């Protein structure tokens, strides 16, 4: 495990439990932590509901690999969780080491949503992986965690994010949205261009202000582009992004697009950072 991060620093909080995160998503999370100058904090939650289930006299599980039923005891489930935690820890360490950031790995027991809500600080960004491997999902856990942590910024990762170069897309609610500052910082860190999507009805002055803020953040004029969205519906937003080849989308928490963040991840297959003020 890497150096323990300072308490007052923001962290990229990675919630891990019984379903281990895909290695490529883990790498993408680590890369994002580097770009945002955050430490990577992995929280492995031993779901107490599983332990309770395993204590029931008739408890058994159907295993995905063999599609056969096996009797389950609380010892079995704890052993399985231990192995899963070790594997998750190894992946976290490798991902952090690969990008050269500090990381921490913490194991807690309880309700996953409650645990994350407890551990998550105001300055943290919570990583949420897109559900949807063609295997069965782990219930409705992830949206719940995201909802529980709705006060925090959330990094939505595609299940298998494409490792590619491309512009940073900023979707601020307005020219003063901190999401724009975050996007500018990321564009500067990555050396990529910045594309600002302006909500319908944005005035030219507001647009100019947004560009000025980006320039003030150190970006050259020729690296900044704006696109005005036509239509309030998701379709309008998505249509505006046609032809873009982006590597990351940063959405302000109060932007109309924030409601479609999860869908955007699925459609564009790139990480989406949903910022909270």
């Amino acid at each position, binding site marked *: 495990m890497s150096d323990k991060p300072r308490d007052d620093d923001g962290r990229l909080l990675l919630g891990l439990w019984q379903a281990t995160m895909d290695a490529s998503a883990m790498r993408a999370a680590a890369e994002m932590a580097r770009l945002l100058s955050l430490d990577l904090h992995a929280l492995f939650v031993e779901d107490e509901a599983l332990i309770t289930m395993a204590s*029931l006299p008739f408890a058994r599980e*159907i295993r*995905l690999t063999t*599609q056969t039923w096996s009797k389950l005891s609380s010892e079995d489930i704890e052993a399985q969780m231990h192995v899963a935690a070790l594997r998750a820890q190894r992946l976290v360490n490798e991902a952090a080491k690969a990008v050269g950031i500090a990381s921490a790995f913490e194991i807690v027991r309880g309700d996953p949503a409650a645990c994350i809500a407890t551990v998550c600080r105001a300055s943290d960004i919570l990583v949420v992986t897109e559900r949807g491997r063609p295997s069965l999902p782990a219930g409705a856990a992830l949206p719940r965690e995201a909802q529980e942590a709705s006060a925090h910024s959330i990094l939505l990762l595609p299940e298998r994010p494409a490792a590619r170069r491309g512009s940073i897309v900023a979707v601020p609610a307005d020219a003063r949205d901190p999401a724009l500052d975050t996007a500018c910082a990321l564009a500067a860190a990555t050396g990529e261009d910045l594309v600002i999507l302006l909500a319908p009805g944005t005035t030219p002055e507001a647009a100019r202000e947004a560009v000025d803020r980006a320039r003030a953040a150190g970006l050259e004029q020729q690296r900044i582009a704006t696109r005005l969205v036509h239509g309030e519906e998701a379709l309008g937003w998505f249509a505006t992004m046609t032809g873009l080849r982006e590597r990351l989308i940063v959405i302000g928490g109060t932007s109309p697009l924030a409601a479609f963040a999860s869908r955007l991840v699925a459609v564009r297959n790139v990480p989406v950072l949903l910022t909270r003020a």
Partner: protein
Amino acid sequence: MSDETTNPHAMPAPLAPPQLYRAADLSGLAFETTADLAPVPRLSNQKRAHEAIDFGAGITHRGFNIFVVSTSGARAQQAVKSLLEEASATRPPPQDWVYVNNFAAPQRPLAIALPSRRAPVFQKAVHDLIEDLRLSLPALFESEDYQKRRRAIEQEVQAKNEHAFAALSEKAAAKNIAILRTPMGFGMAPVRNGKVVPPADFNAWPEAEQQATRDAIGELEKELEETLRSIPRMEKEQRDAVRALDRETASQAVAQLFVQLRAQFEDLPAVLAHIDAIRTDLLENLPLLMSAEAAEPGAMQAAMRTGGPFGRYEVNVVVTEVDHSPGAPVVEEPHPTLANLVGRIEYLQIQGALVTDFRLIKAGALHRANGGMLLLDVRSLLTEPFTWPALKRALRRREITIEDAGRFMGFNMTVSLEPDPIPLDVKVVLFGDRLLYHLLSTLDPDFTEEFKVLADFDDDTDRSPAGEAMLACMIGDIARGEELLAFDRGAVARMVEHASRMAEDANKVTLLAEGLHDLLVEASHLASTASRKVVTRADVDAAIARRIHRLSRVRERSQEMILRDIALIETSGARVGQINGLAVMGFAGYAFGHPSRITCRVRPGGGKIVDIEREVELGGKLHSKGVLILSGFLAGRYALDTPMSLSASLVFEQSYGGVDGDSASSTELYALLSALSELPLRQDLAVTGSVNQHGMVQAIGGVNDKIEGYFDICASRGLTGTQGVLIPASNVQHLMLRQDVVEACAAGRFAVYPVHTIDEGIALLTGRAAGERGGDGLYPAGSVNRAVEDRLRQFAEVAKAARKENDGEKSSGKSGEKST
């Protein structure tokens, strides 16, 4: 001619100087120096060989490959090569050949023929296509449109998945059951208020409620089972759909590229088939290629020279006309190892393992010469393992199969390739000497099947005015070719005379340019060192003398031994049963003659002549034959009415090396006749020549060297005017003696005697006539032959008496004792 037709009393007269050396006559050739001489048309002096090469090169039937027999080595090879290149330049160029990947069986690469010069075009076109694909395909698969369609497929399957699971979850929830994901799979548990019911609470439930929950879970488990079972099928459906999308996407993107590629090779069905195979394979393996391409770092790729995953589509040009001059190729392979001949498969060591593919197939000389001519030195070919059989196999099967010597020897155990054989249409020209030609003809039955044309180069040519003129022009060619100084008339004449000496014949000149070349270079060097612009006769003489001097250490030591009386050779006086023979020694291409004493002792015996050299196994077969002929001569000429009762022994005194050849047989006969007749032989004369059973003296080799060898000894001791050498008369035409020998003969201080018969020779050696059998059947009294015959009769009498005595002893029971 028989001995009866010659005059037994005639004493041979010494040869006149013009018979000892034939000066060159260049009066018919107008030139001042070799710079004025026209070049010699190539192989104009080798008409027979020239015709054979023309025939062999022109005939297309199987097996008419050419074997060039020549002792002039590289120069003949160069001349033949130039001739063949001229002939090949006007012939149609052969096809190009490429090796490409066999997608169905990669270990068996496919060979494809293309018209001349189109293989590099095909290679570049495919390479460009690959480069285009490497750049465009990743972008294509990252395009928004593709990603959108792919996500749609994945989401559709995922939605089905989720729908099924959601429905099950809802059904479970309605029964207060939760489906929970465990690290290994799924489990079910009763829930109350969103929490899993702890065991204690569950156990507190009424039995009926517990049972109902168990039953509900049991039913749901069956449905969960069914749902999970459908997942692999849906995943497969998704994979198939994504693959179809990949294929469709790529197919549309690459279609135009392939149409353009095909258009360039519409006339070549095999090429079109391969282009189609590339397209099929590309579409089939697209995801694999893309992921491999992304995973393989460029540096590693360069280091491994594997060309990345797209390398499988490259084209390996094995042979193309671009590699040689226009027309049919004429290829010379100076180092015909198996790999250099039939090609090879190279390997790369990657992470400790040897790997190869069709791109590492390298052409051999047969590939490069296919459709033209391949020139090989047969000695080099035969000394390389596996190559001769491989060449014969290729010619017999008319195809080139790449064979790996390492595999034959069991050195190479790694997986290798079996490339398609390439049809072979080549004319092989082997260069070798006569011995090799005859050995191959005799010992290898396949040889004459495959090499039906013999181009036999003459080593010499007639020394007619035309022949001398041709040689003069040839000297001019060498001088020009080597950028030597020009040679004046005197120098050229001396070179012609030396060429005659090299041919060992006053009526021939050598055609072995190599020997002439070295002398010309040295003579030019001497002239140049002396700041002369033209090479003169004196320079050539000096060059010859220096060359001889450099090689003369052994000769001088041999002469020194004689002059210090360590090797006993008398050059004056007369001795019974002792004569000076002449032998030739060779050293590093230089031969010299030296005298050797031959002695003979006789006594009554069983008619046997003992060749001591043979008895101690120092005599060769030819020498033994010569000695046996002496018995035939004696038996046929002397004491015909009595049994041969002679026992004689012949020996080369102080000879410690082997003796072979029959050139001393006349000498031995003279010694034998002297021993029998007890007439002394002159020691101031030396003798060479073989003899037949009729007493005729026959030609031998090295006559010039032998005469000069004896002359040197006599000259060192002081020429007396009586010294000389007896040579076969038939060797007179071979005389090209050194100038000092000729001058001594002209001054009467030395002599060379041509001898036709033994009678002539013995008369000269003994000073007494040989004698001719008279009407009374007897040789004249006082003649050599009479003395010999009388001695033989005497021996017969002795032998007869001895036999009688022996018989008497046997009848009186005294057998077992030997008579003397």
